[in-house]
């Protein structure tokens, strides 16, 4: 079974600053998908960003971008210009082939006003 590791259980950042959440994964495959999901205090989880491993270019969505290092099996999420609404649990997830989506244990992000 694949594993997804989020080594930072909690992070905090000053409002308007930039923060990076780390994620590493274990795989021997070359063509897979990676995701960052956000779970705000209201609990409903939403997709933040999706990366296809065969694409070299890092995915971006407005203030959210990833640093995808395929050889290092690393998929970090950078949030620029942090806002109070970014406060949430962030989950990294991995998917390949006929396997199921594997989630990390999450990072709780606090935004300091």
């Amino acid at each position, binding site marked *: 079974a694949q594993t997804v590791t989020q080594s930072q259980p909690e992070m905090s950042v000053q409002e308007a600053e930039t923060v990076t959440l780390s994620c590493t994964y274990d795989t021997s495959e070359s063509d897979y*998908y990676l995701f960052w999901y956000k779970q705000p205090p209201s*609990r409903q*989880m939403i*997709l933040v960003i999706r990366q296809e491993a065969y694409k070299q270019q890092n995915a971006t969505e407005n203030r959210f971008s990833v640093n995808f290092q395929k050889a290092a099996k690393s998929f970090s999420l950078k949030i620029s210009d942090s806002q109070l609404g970014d406060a949430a649990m962030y989950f990294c997830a991995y998917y390949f082939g006929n396997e*199921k989506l594997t*989630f990390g244990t*999450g990072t709780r992000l606090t935004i300091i006003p």
Partner: protein
Amino acid sequence: NAGVTQTPKFRILKIGQSMTLQCTQDMNHNYMYWYRQDPGMGLKLIYYSVGAGITDKGEVPNGYNVSRSTTEDFPLRLELAAPSQTSVYFCASSYDSWAYEQYFGPGTRLTVT
């Protein structure tokens, strides 16, 4: 367009009781999923379905049952509730495979006492 809806939002069960958690999606998605999230933890897959009439076990299926008679509905049945089933339950759906974005419902908080 309501997305994924779940009922009830909250429920308290006594040990040994049974109940059904309802999940409906209006996006005509083929794939549907049930997850549980224990406090401070990530998501664990209970069951999933790739289309009407087709279901399969996930990581933690014991004590649960599912059915998928229509594309829209994917109810989760708890038989003989146990305290270990105290958790928040999330239903999700995706268009065609695990590689696509999963859309989550708001969750059901279940307490078994």
